[in-house]
Structures are given as C-alpha cells and as structure tokens.
C-alpha cells in the first residue's frame, strides 16, 4: 500500500553519513550496496522506508541507510516492525536480522510475524555462526561444527530457515548467495512488490568466524552446478551447460540430465512460486543438491492489515459512535442533581 513516487533517486540518496564498521571482506557490504542500489528502483519515497533491526552484525544495517530506522534489542525487530506497519500501513518496512537474532532469541516473534502475514520484508543474514559475540554456534550451525562454545563440535541439529518459515506459513520465501548481487537486488524488488511478509535468506559469509562455509555452493566455479536459480513459470534447469534439471520421481525430486535416457527440456518441472499448496516448495527448500535459490515461494494472500482495515471499516459503518463522549454517555448512566 506504499504510495508510488515519480521522484528519481540514486544509491547515494540512500547512503547515510555513518562510517560502515563491518569486517573487511564481509558479505554484509555486498548486501548493503545491493540494497542501496535496489531502493531507488522501488518507486517508494525515501521518507516512507523504515529499516528495523535487532542485535548482531546484520543489525547495524539501518545505521548505514539514509531512511528512517530503528536499531532495537536482540530478537525483537519483528515486534517493532509490526507495530510500525500497523500504525502506518503506508510505510515500506524492512527487517534486517541474522540467524541467531531471528531463530534463537527471536524465534517466537519470527514464526508469528510470518504467520500473520503483515506486509513487511525480512532479510535474514544467515552465516551459521554468532559474529558479534565472537564465534559461538548458532541455530543454523552444522552438527560437528567447531566453534568457541562447541570446541569439540556442535551437538545441536540446525534449523533450515526456509523449512521453519514454510512451517510458519510464510507466503514469500527466497534464498540467495551473498556473492550474487544481481539476483539479490532483483529479489529485494520482488519482495517489496509482494503484499505480505517476505523472507529473504542470504547465505552470508562471515570472514572471521565461519569463513568459506558456503564456498562449496557459492564459489564462482561451482555455483552454476551446485545451485538451481528458480524463476516463476520457467523450467527447473541448472548447470554450467544448462543440461541438468529437476523431475518428480515417485514422491521425490530427482536431478536428471537433458539428453540422457530420452529426457528433454519438456520433461522438467516448471516452477510455480505462486502455488498455494507449499508441498513442492518444501521439497525445494529442503533439497541439498542442487541448492534452490531465487524466489521459491510467492503466494498471494490477504495481509493482516487488509483484514484489520476491512473489519475496522465494517465496525465503523455499523457504529453510532464517532467520539469517545458518545461511548461515555451511552448505556446505563444516571443523573445526580
């Protein structure tokens, strides 16, 4: 419901005067730069953007954008953002969060914000580690991962953010590597256009405490073979030679090669992000090879504020109360003379 504007902005208009203080080489720089470039493309007035964050490296994000912003407390950005959006549905509200912020301390808020489907956008910087507290395992760290708080290896099984999100009824889920700014920018714009809660998981490399954890998927030379970039309405095809694809075999997804065993491009599944039934989206989210990236789910549904607005309008149309005095003097009153 954000009002569109004619005014032309550049990335510079969205850059604050604050010195950026992430570690050199951190993927967060890519995400910030990509956002600064994407914001002018969204057709929203600068004053109508609000960035909200909790605590963690990612949560410094709002300070570096010249928009309205609030850097809140650990895990609580969804509550703050929900209040902002419900107070003023005309705003474009964004949450910057990390794996610990969203899924550990803020886990309850994270699932409920997705369930409610308020029109706001969540960028989840997933680096599978706690960075700001200097290197403890997070809810997405792998079993066996050695960290400062798991010197002999992590024993807690990880969440898959997409799986958790879909379980909480997320209507929009996208995933993208930190090294893919072009696609990332496009996803930011799609998330902004989507009416409802959008969740974007970014596989974000932490150069200090978990360096290279996504290299086997995101490195330039393996990326095309290890990832499938999904686009709505297009066949599920991947690989350097664009010769691999996905089909159903029984109840499972299977990787096939075009040209082998009589497989042609027509046999491949076509991605339907807008499907209400999340079954296939679940499979795509859980799939390890190839790792699904792009907009995996984008199902249009009624937002909380639309329901609230409709209900408020209905109640108003039926009520005889316009001022609080009408309420105070209604019903059982009596006079003392």
């Amino acid at each position, binding site marked *: 419901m954000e009002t569109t504007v004619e005014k032309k902005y550049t990335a510079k208009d969205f850059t604050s005067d604050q010195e950026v203080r992430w570690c050199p080489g951190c993927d967060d720089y890519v995400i910030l730069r990509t956002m600064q470039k994407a914001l002018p493309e969204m057709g929203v007035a600068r004053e109508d953007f609000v960035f909200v964050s909790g605590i963690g490296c990612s949560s410094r994000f709002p*300070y570096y954008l010249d928009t309205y*912003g609030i850097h809140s407390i650990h895990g*609580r950005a969804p509550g703050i953002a*929900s209040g902002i959006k419900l107070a003023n549905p005309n705003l474009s509200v964004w949450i910057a969060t990390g794996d610990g912020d969203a899924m550990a301390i803020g886990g309850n808020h994270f699932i409920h914000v997705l369930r409610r489907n308020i029109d706001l956008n969540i960028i989840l910087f997933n680096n599978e580690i706690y960075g700001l507290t200097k290197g403890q395992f997070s809810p997405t760290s792998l079993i066996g991962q050695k960290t400062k708080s798991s010197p002999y290896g992590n024993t807690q099984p990880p969440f898959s953010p997409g799986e958790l999100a879909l379980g909480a009824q997320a209507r929009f889920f996208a995933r993208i590597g930190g090294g893919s700014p072009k696609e990332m920018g496009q996803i930011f714009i799609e998330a902004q256009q989507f009416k409802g809660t959008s969740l974007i998981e970014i596989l974000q490399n932490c150069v200090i405490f978990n360096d290279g954890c996504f290299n086997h998927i995101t490195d330039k030379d393996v990326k095309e073979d290890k990832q499938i970039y999904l686009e709505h309405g297009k066949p599920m095809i991947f690989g350097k030679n664009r010769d691999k694809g996905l089909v159903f075999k029984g109840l499972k997804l299977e990787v096939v090669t075009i040209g082998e065993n009589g497989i042609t491009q027509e046999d491949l599944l076509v991605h339907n992000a807008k499907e209400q039934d999340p079954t296939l989206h679940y499979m795509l989210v859980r799939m390890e090879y190839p790792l699904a990236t792009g907009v995996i789910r984008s199902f249009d549904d009624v937002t909380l504020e639309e329901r609230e607005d409709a209900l408020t309008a209905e109640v108003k149309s039926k009520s005889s*109360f316009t001022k*609080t005095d009408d309420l105070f003097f209604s019903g*059982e009153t009596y006079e*003392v003379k």
Partner: protein
Amino acid sequence: MIETKIKPQPEKLEAVVIRFVGDSGDGMQLTGTQFTDTSAMFGNDIATFPNYPSEIRAPQGSLYGVSGFQVHIGSVEVSTPGDSVDLLVAMNPAALKTNLYALKPGHTLIVDTDSFNKKNLEKAEYTTNPLEDGSLENYKVIEVDMTSLTKTALKDVAGLDTKTISRSKNMFSLGMIYWMYNRSTDYTIDFFNKKFKAKPSLVEANTKVLMAGYYFAETLELIPNSYTISPAKMPAGTYRIIMGNTATAWGFLAAAEKSGLELFLGSYPITPATDILHELAKHKHFGVKAFQAEDEIAGVTSAIGASFAGDLAITTTSGPGLALKGEAIGLAIMTELPLVIVDVQRGGPSTGLPTKTEQSDLLQALYGRNGESPVIVIAASTPANCFNFAYEAARIALEHMTPVILLTDGYIANGSAPWKIKTVAEMPEIKSNRIKEVKENWHPYDRDEKTLARNWAIPGTPGLEHRIGGLEKDAVTGNISYEPMNHEKMTAIRAEKIERVKFNIPDLETEFATEGDLLVIGWGGTYGSLHSAVKQMNEQGHKNIGYAHFNYINPMPKNTGTILSKFKKIVVCELNSGQFASILKIKHSEFEFLQFNKIQGLPFANDDLIQQFKELV
C-alpha cells in the same frame, strides 16, 4: 410499577454492605451488578468488588467454585467495598462455609435451604448441617426454599428447561433484597426486556421469579422491617458505574482523541490486566488498534514500533509481564519515545497470587531494568480515577517523550464505583512534541529547553529521515557514541528529564489536617481504605491526623518535603513490605518513616488501620 400493601415505615440506614455468594453458575455477578445499578440510579454512593474463582468451570458445589460479589452502598461517602458485611446471601453450603467469616455477628444471613442437601454438605466439607447444628445462632438466619419457590413460580411458563428454571433462582434472592432495601424492581425488569429481547419466555420467567422473591420477602414474618438508604450527596452531573480496568481503557481513548493521535495497544493476556485489552478491542469504531501479540515482549515492542511511527502507544500487563518487558522499556527510555506501560499489580513473586491484590511491583517499576534507566511512575487510586491517571500517563509520555509506567492493582481494577462522566473537552490539553517540517541543522535528539523532551519526527515525514536505537547516543547528533564523557552527560540528561516532570504535575495535598501529630501516607489503590480510616479517626475527634496520598511516585510532587515537615510522626501504609517507605527514606532522609504493611493478597481492613493509628497518636 409494583402495587404493594402498606409497608411499615422503613428504617433508615447510612450504609450497608451486602455480599452475594453462590456457585460459579449461580449468577452472583449478575445479581450483584443489578443491585448495584439499581442503587446507583437511586442515588447512593457505591463501591463494589467481585470475587471469582480462578477455575473457569469449577465442579458444582465445591469450595473452590464459589463466586461472590460484594457491594457497599451508602447515603454517605463510600470509599471501599467494605471489610465485613451486614447481609450475606449464600446460595449453597460451600458459599456459606467460605464466606461466613465476613458476616458481622447478629446480622442477617439468607440461605437457599434446598441446596443444603447431603451431597452439597459433603462437598462443602460440613459434617453436620449448619442450619441444624446451632452453629449459626449468632446470626439472623432467613431460611428460604428458594429452588422450590422458583420452580413453583415458573410452573405456568411454557418452554423452559430445568436448567433455565434452576438458574433463575438468583433473581428470587434479588427480589427479596429489593424489598428489604426498599428498592424498585423497574430497572431490573427493564434490563430483562433489553437482554432477552429475542426470547420473551426468558423475560417472563426472570420477571416472575424476581417478583416472587419480592412478594415473598414482603409477606415473610422473618423480615419484620425494610430498610432505606437515602441518596448520597454527590456533585451534580451525569454518572455511570465503572470498573477500574474499563476506566483505564477509556482514559486512553480520551487521550488519543484529545491529542489527535491514533491509539495502539500491544498486549498479551494476563490476569488481572486482560480486561483492558478486552475493552479496547471493542473500539475499532474509534480506529483503536488493539494488537494481541505472541508474548509480553512482542506486546511492548509492537507498541514501541507504533510509537516510533507516531501513534499513542500503550502496553498493558501485570507483574510477571512487566518483568518480561524490562529490556524493551529500556529501549524506549534510550530512544526517548512516548509509551505507556500499565501494570495491574497482583500478588508476587513469580506467578504468585494472580487474582489477589498487592502493591509489590513498585520497586520493579522504578528500577527493574538494566543500566540507569529512570522512568516516570504514577499510580491510580480508585476505580474511577483510573480514567484520570491513564489520561495523565498518556499526557506525560507525549509531553516528555519518555515511557510512563501506570500502576493500578487487582483491587481497583476489578472494583467498580460511580464515575462522574468527563467529556473530552473537559480534559487538559496534551501538547505533543511532533515536528513536521525540516529545520536547518536538525537532529533527532534536539530538545525542548524547558522539559528536555526531544522532538518526535515520524516516518513518512520528508527530510527528517533518521536512525535511533538502543546504543548510546551522541548528545548533539544522536549518532552512536561510545565517548565516556558523552555517556555521563546523556545519563544525566535522561535523569534530569524525568526530574523536570515535577513541574508538570500537581502539588501533593493533605486531607483532614495540614499539620499535626501524625501524617498517614499511602499511594495507589489503598486510597479508599486509608481515606475512610483517617476520616473515621477525624470524626472521632483525632483532629491532628492528616492524610497524604501519592499518585505521582517518580518524580514526587515538588512540595513533598514541605508536607512531610508539618507532622511529628509519619506512617507509610502499603500492601508490601515497605517499598514506598524505602524510596521516601532515600529521598527524604531528614524524616523518620514508620511503616504499616500487609502482604496477604487483601486490601487493608478498617479496624486494623484504626487500631494502628490509635497506637501512634
């Protein structure tokens, strides 16, 4: 209108306390509120208090399933629901067993004898029937076979099931009480007509039973006389009976309208605060956004978000919830956003006594956060003035750009009393710190010179884009700053900002005496008990006792020291172990403070207060 035979001249009483008790399903709350409303219409001063069981549907006839409603009506000022009762209406043995302690010796007890059967006596753990074993000989017992009489009264009404018939026996008792206290049945019959508009058989049934009770009392020789309580002298105006929690909710509605802001409530259900959420959820017609969040923390954080975005934002809770909200309240202090937190106090610690009253969250409200995080704390003192103090909390939060904690408690939140209705026009102005236009060299932490309140620039305003957050702010630019001297400066500014609120609140006043031997001090929900006890002492000739009641706790009224200096002795009375006394000792160490404390989940009893005060003078 009722045609009756000529009555003996009713005996005049100044005040009476009646308690209706029965099984949760017996409709005691309805009986009590009908008697209350009828008496209010008649012009009496009133205070009521309900007593529900914690269990939602406790087994019938059980001791813990007893539900009660107490009402105190008077031709004189009534400031509490009363400690002991003049008339007890007990609908079953369990109700009698759990409430007899409150009945004054020699006073009247009405029982439904039909319910005193073997099964119910056993459930109430009576080994002998109290109606037969002589244990009630100190009371005037009126035995009525109420269930049978109700059945007889309804034998000609078609289309009623057994459940409906047995459920209407509460109206029989109400009819009796109406006769005894010389009250008209019109208001209640009118109520039936409205409530059961679609079911004429229920209107007929309830009316018949009510009148049957009324005529039964009239002809009953056990009730030799009826009583009357003349209208009380109250300021002229339009009144209604209001519960504390409703008054709190309405205070916020008025503040939102007056300030021209939309009202946002972020809340999570918790006893005894939930009724505020219930009430505000009804008022979508005023555009109220009542957001039931996933937990206490999301309740307060959503309110902080709404405040950042320009709404009048509040969150409501009780003690355990306030503990959970602590970190977020610190954020609101740091970001200097207007926010009202209502804590309807109950017995603690931990889950404590959810349905009982206490004043033990005071220190939590003042200090229950990390770092030096001063907050404004105010407290309502009667069911009706919850309206004023909710309004006041909103006014101060908006004018000073800071969170305000409003303390009420289970006693005043669930109690009800007459409220002289205030129009929004009568309420004081609210001047918010909103800025709408870009100024040269503007910063988000630019302050009002007088109040030190920062200006409030909300998202959607072009040119005022800015970032705030929980990290320490540079005093000038509002950017993150870890500078040692800046932190000390900001800590001082935040404290000074709260301190200056004392110039925007009324002075402390004393009642009954401006100087003398003893100053009784109270705060919050104990006003009714303390006021009436000191008044009674005064009427008994103790003219040297004054009473000062604090509604503003932090900061305290600026004349507090002057008031304290006028009395030889000071006693601080509170429903905790001495929390407010400890604050007074810190802030006014030049005086000695005696204490009178009670931590039983109950309000002060008048006799205990009188005894205590007599010992001190």
